[in-house]
């Protein structure tokens, strides 16, 4: 903040009364702003802090105080929670979640890239109509398609398998991601692809060697969102998965609320913390390319 005012006072003459006044005012502004931001930031993050803290509290202490720091910390919640009230441990449920998440993320990355590349770079008959339909599905609320989709997958005999959850992703079913990639591609100049074609690359080679690497930041974002949304998806598995053995983490958490008469809040919270970890880890690993500059370098003045 003080950097901003420096040039004003840099002249050899002593600062005038007005300059001093301006400096003081902007310093006060900075103090005020940062205090406000810190307070609001703390309020926002507090529930999360409480969640982590409370997962180490005993069940008795849980509701005695709104403060997040446990008086006498215990990992009993983690031990009980991991065992669950079912014959399976949480390891099974994590494994199940991965069985849904990983194919879904891969499928999304591949299918969305292909579809977006097609829309952004090629002219074909019916393109306008198809694009309009794509946008329309973006605006369509999910609930509208739930029942027909359920009937379709029942006909296919896919109930109580992960296929209804995974298959749409392989068919670029998430219009939002396709749309996002198209917008990203549109902002990338075509010259690099044209240079590749002149260099002798065919369409597939251009896509793999040129477009995909340039698209990488967008692709990482798509995978990240898909990972988190799928990890957190509750309704999808609830509708299609009926065997406890096949439950993903999101359903398993609910399971521990249902099954016991007196809720073991600390074990529920402990498992919630664990359920959050994969998303957080993935986010921090991907953060660099997620935020990194986009298509600079190839085309600049």
């Amino acid at each position: 903040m003080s950097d901003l005012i420096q040039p004003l006072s840099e002249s050899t003459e002593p600062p005038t009364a007005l300059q001093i006044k301006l400096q003081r005012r902007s310093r006060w502004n900075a103090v005020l702003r940062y205090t406000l931001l810190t307070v609001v930031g703390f309020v926002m993050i507090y529930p999360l802090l409480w969640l982590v803290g409370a997962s180490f509290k005993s069940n008795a202490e849980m509701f005695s105080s709104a403060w997040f720091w446990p008086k006498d910390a215990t990992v009993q919640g983690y031990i009980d929670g991991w065992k669950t009230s079912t014959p399976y441990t949480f390891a099974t449920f994590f494994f199940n979640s991965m069985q849904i998440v990983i194919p879904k993320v891969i499928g999304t990355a591949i299918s969305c890239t292909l579809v977006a590349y097609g829309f952004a770079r090629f002219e074909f008959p019916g393109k306008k109509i198809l694009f309009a339909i794509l946008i329309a599905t973006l605006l369509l609320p999910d609930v509208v398609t739930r029942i027909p989709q359920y009937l379709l997958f029942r006909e296919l005999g896919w109930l109580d398998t992960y296929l209804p959850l995974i298959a749409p992703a392989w068919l670029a079913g998430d219009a939002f991601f396709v749309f996002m990639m198209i917008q990203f591609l549109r902002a990338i100049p075509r010259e690099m692809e044209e240079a590749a074609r002149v260099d002798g690359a065919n369409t597939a080679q251009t896509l793999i060697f040129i477009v995909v690497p340039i698209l990488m930041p967008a692709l990482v974002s798509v995978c990240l969102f898909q990972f988190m949304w799928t990890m957190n998806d509750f309704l999808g598995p609830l509708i299609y998965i009926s065997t406890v053995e096949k439950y993903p983490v999101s359903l398993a958490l609910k399971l521990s609320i249902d099954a016991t008469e007196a809720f073991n809040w600390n074990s529920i919270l402990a498992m919630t913390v664990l359920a959050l970890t994969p998303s957080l880890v993935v986010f921090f690993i991907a953060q660099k390319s997620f935020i990194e500059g986009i298509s600079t370098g190839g085309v600049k003045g």
Partner: protein
Amino acid sequence: MAELQLRSVEKSYGNGFKAVHGIDLHVKEGEFMVLVGPSGCAKSTTLRMIAGLETITGGEVLIGDRVVNDLVPGKRGIAMVFQNYALYPHMQVRRNLSFGLRLKRQPKEQIESATQDVSGVLEIEELLDRLPKQLSGGQAQRVALGRALIKQPEVFLFDEPLSNLDAKLRASMRVRITDLHKRLRDEARPATVVYVTHDQVEAMTMGDRICVMKDGHIMQVADPTTLYDRPANAFVAGFIGMPEMNLVPAALAGGKGGQSLTLDGQSISVGKDLEARLESSGGRVTMGIRPQHLEIVAADADDALTGKIVNLEFMGHEVNLHADVGGETFVCVVPSDQFDKNLQRGDRVGLRPRTSKMHVFDIHTGANISLA
């Protein structure tokens, strides 16, 4: 290496816009051909049809003796340098250079030695391990040039490769490219080049021949001197040369002392040389005289147009004098040491054209009718 031919090539875009109206062009083997014209005259479109990046909607393009209309760019034996460099941002310079060769699965040692050769010629050895974003504009354009050179194509295509560079760098790159072209010619592997620019200085200094385009038509194809001295039409006359040629409507008429041109009630005799060249004996015409070929004389002198000075631009080594003659502005370039310092805005002066250097154009078609 091969020649390049365009035979009544046409281009209509998907939206129905006709950008190129049947052009014929023959670029000889090893020739440096410059396509020049104002923005939007379809230079890029033409070049991209040669490259195979746009479909050809009429006519034929031949490279060597092959019709390439239906070949993909990679199979045409061309290399292209883009205005924006279009380097692959995620590859180091080395891999940018070798991308084409790697696609062709050439042996490693061969790729390595080709990379060394090219980077030596272009002095980019130190840059080989950098990413494009770590290069300056001039360096990036040299790499782009290297990426074209390494393929040893039959035809080089350039689309305004220097317009993103500052003036100084542009001048040095200009020399570098022409030197390279000469060098390849000396090494007996001449490169056929089609070079697009909107900059007439680039065109005049680089081209063996220049093709001037306007609105998807070719206006004239000729070497720089011919283009300057014998422009085929008023468009070329006005486009080539700095400052622009003065093009002013006038009346051509015969008389006792030979033919004369009249404008604003003032007549000047056309002189023997021009009279011999003229293909017309009278009527409305456009007269054309370059600013360098107008001499400042006393107002009311013989065979001079009298006008009023409306602007004076001092350029250092020369002075641009703008004079109004009956509503038409003439620009006249005078070397500083010959310029009468007493002249001021508002003064009346005489402008005497060197008629031997004058051109007369058909007022409707713009065709030069003083070339005979």
